[in-house]
Structure formats: structure tokens, C-alpha cells
């Protein structure tokens, strides 16, 4: 049960932003502009970074929902998502994306862990300033979302089908603040 009185049966962050829409609106705006707005990284790649960071934080709700969104957005290449979450170095993805996932994994632990050589490695494989910036900010943002969702012990569905539906919605509609209806 959640640590605060949220609506029963509403999963994860949705229950929290419905409890406090005054802050929730900005959380959804940030997710939308960061994961769907202008970026040199594809929407699928950005969802993959979000799922990877959430997996490292063991946030089941965020990991499952963003992995589902990434699978939806990767379309016929959706199998890469589970390989990345298992062992990204062995995944059939570009060396650039591998280097960015290394940076994201370090940000998940602490920002100070990102070293000049990590950034150098990403640049060597073609990453530009914005790739690096967006990777760090996505990893930092999910360090926030994961703590929000688990810190208040929000409801985490266990049925994989529930996440598949979320993934379709997130892929199709992006991030729209849910309202009580």
C-alpha cells in the first residue's frame, strides 16, 4: 500500500500526480519535452535509456513501463530492449549508444562518476554535445522519477499485459497528465 492516501488501484506515478497535480503537471511536461521533444536521440533510444536507469534503480514500475514504450517504439527491433536490460554490451546496438548507456549507468550511481574518458569514448563513436547532455539529463530525471515512485510505495502492477498497454499509450500519445474522471 502506498505511504500516502492515493486513489486505490491507480498504478505508479499516475496515482501520485493525481494526488498532487500542481507538481504533477510539470513532471509530465518534463517527460514530454525530454523524451518526445527535439533531440538527436530517437524516441526509442531515449525510452531505452529511461528503462535502463530504472532497471539499475530496481524501480519495477518505471522499468516495465518504459521498457514497454521502448519496445513499442523500436517496432521490429523491439528484441534489443531486453538484451540491453540484460547486458547492453552484447546488444545489437551502435557503439555510440553503448557509450551513452555507460554514461547513463554512471549518472545513476552519482554524477561525479562520469569521467572525461567516458565522454571521450562517446564522442569517438559520434556522440555530440546534445547526445551527451540529453543522456545525462534523462538518467538524472529517472533518478528522480524512480525515487518518487518507490519512495511513496506507489502501486506496481505485476501483470505484464498492463505494461504492454501502457507502452502503447506512451508510444502513441506521449506524456499527458492523467486526471480524475
Amino acid at each position: 500500500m502506498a505511504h500516502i492516501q492515493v486513489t486505490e488501484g491507480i498504478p505508479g506515478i499516475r496515482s501520485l500526480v493525481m494526488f498532487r497535480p500542481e507538481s504533477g503537471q510539470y513532471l509530465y511536461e518534463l517527460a514530454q519535452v525530454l523524451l518526445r521533444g527535439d533531440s538527436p536521440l530517437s524516441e526509442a533510444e531515449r525510452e531505452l535509456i529511461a528503462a535502463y536507469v530504472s532497471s539499475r534503480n530496481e524501480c519495477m514500475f518505471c522499468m516495465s513501463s518504459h521498457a514497454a514504450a521502448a519496445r513499442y517504439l523500436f517496432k521490429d527491433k523491439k528484441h534489443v530492449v531486453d538484451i540491453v536490460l540484460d547486458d547492453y554490451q552484447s546488444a545489437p546496438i551502435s557503439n555510440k549508444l553503448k557509450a551513452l548507456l555507460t554514461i547513463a549507468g554512471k549518472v545513476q550511481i552519482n554524477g561525479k562518476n562520469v569521467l572525461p574518458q567516458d565522454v571521450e569514448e562517446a564522442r569517438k563513436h559520434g556522440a555530440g554535445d546534445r547526445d551527451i547532455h540529453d543522456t545525462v539529463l534523462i538518467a538524472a530525471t529517472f533518478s528522480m522519477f524512480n525515487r518518487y515512485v518507490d519512495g511513496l510505495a506507489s502501486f506496481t502492477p505485476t501483470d505484464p499485459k498492463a505494461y504492454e498497454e501502457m507502452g502503447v499509450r506512451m508510444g502513441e500519445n506521449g506524456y499527458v497528465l492523467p486526471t480524475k474522471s
Partner: protein
Amino acid sequence: MPHIPLEEHLPGITGLLEYKKDTAEPIRKLTQFLLRGPSTLTAGERELIATVVSNGNECTFCTNAHTAAADKLLGECDTSQAVKKNIATAPVSEKMKALLTIASQVQKSGKAVTAQSIQKAKEEGATDIEIHDTVLIAALFALYNRYVDGLSTVAPADPAFYKGLAERISKGYMRLPQGYDHLKK
């Protein structure tokens, strides 16, 4: 040196928020609401939450900035130092001790928040909204600390810098309407 080119006259978070303004806007609005918006916690108390989390993450820029902001809003410098050393013995209310304990658990992981620490906060009179806002402020600084250090932004050594910054952020977190060119030396 930062990992990406940022305006040299804007160390720490400000250079990042100016680098990409479309993501900066919801981050600024969220911070303004959580730290300066209507609340049963004072702005000074909320800055103490930001300070404890930034200190736990060893983020020099954020720790110095929010310590200075807390000091300015509280009108003294002892409480911010005390909460960084030991929450249990700091000169704050029992409710604030319980909320700062929750914040320091969030700093480690959302999963580190225990039912007992939530129960303690409720026993000391914390409302659901205060608990919610404490967790979200702590989570927001998990973002800020990683953004600031993950891109290796500059943390000025001069304490006068943070005093000046505290003057500005004690008034609010929104982008200045005139921008920041006046800070160029």
C-alpha cells in the same frame, strides 16, 4: 571543465538551464512550486531538505547553494550546518527531523524509505502532502545533483558567489526576465 560547452559566466546549474531552455522550464516551475509555492513547510525548511540531499550526494555546487539559501531564509547559519552533520541532534522540530530522515533515505534510493520512517513522520504531525512534497523535493535533488555533476559543471570556490546566488534564489527559481548577461564580468 564541463563535459559540454557552457557559458563561462554561468557556473553550476544555471549554465545547464540556459543551455537547453525547453527542459529547463518545467524543471524551474517544479522547483518554484515545491520550494517556494504555498506549503505548510516554510521555504527555509524546504531548503534544508534540498541541502541534506545535495550533501548526501556530495554535490558541492548544490550543497553550497542551498545551504546559503537556507541560511538566508532562516536568518541564521547554524541549522543548515547541524542538519548536514546529524539530523537527530539538529535544532529543528521532531516533525522536521522525521521528514529530513525520509529525505536522506530517498537520497539513497526510493526503496530505502521505510514504513517506520513514514509512521514516525505521521506521529509527529506530518500530513500526506508534507510527506509527498518531502519525497518529491528529495527526488528532484537526485536529479539536480546528477545533472550538475554528471556534466561536470564548475562549482566556484568563493563563498561570496553562493551568497549572491542565495539572494537571487531566495526570491524564486524562475528564469530572470532579462536573462543572465548582466552577470558577465
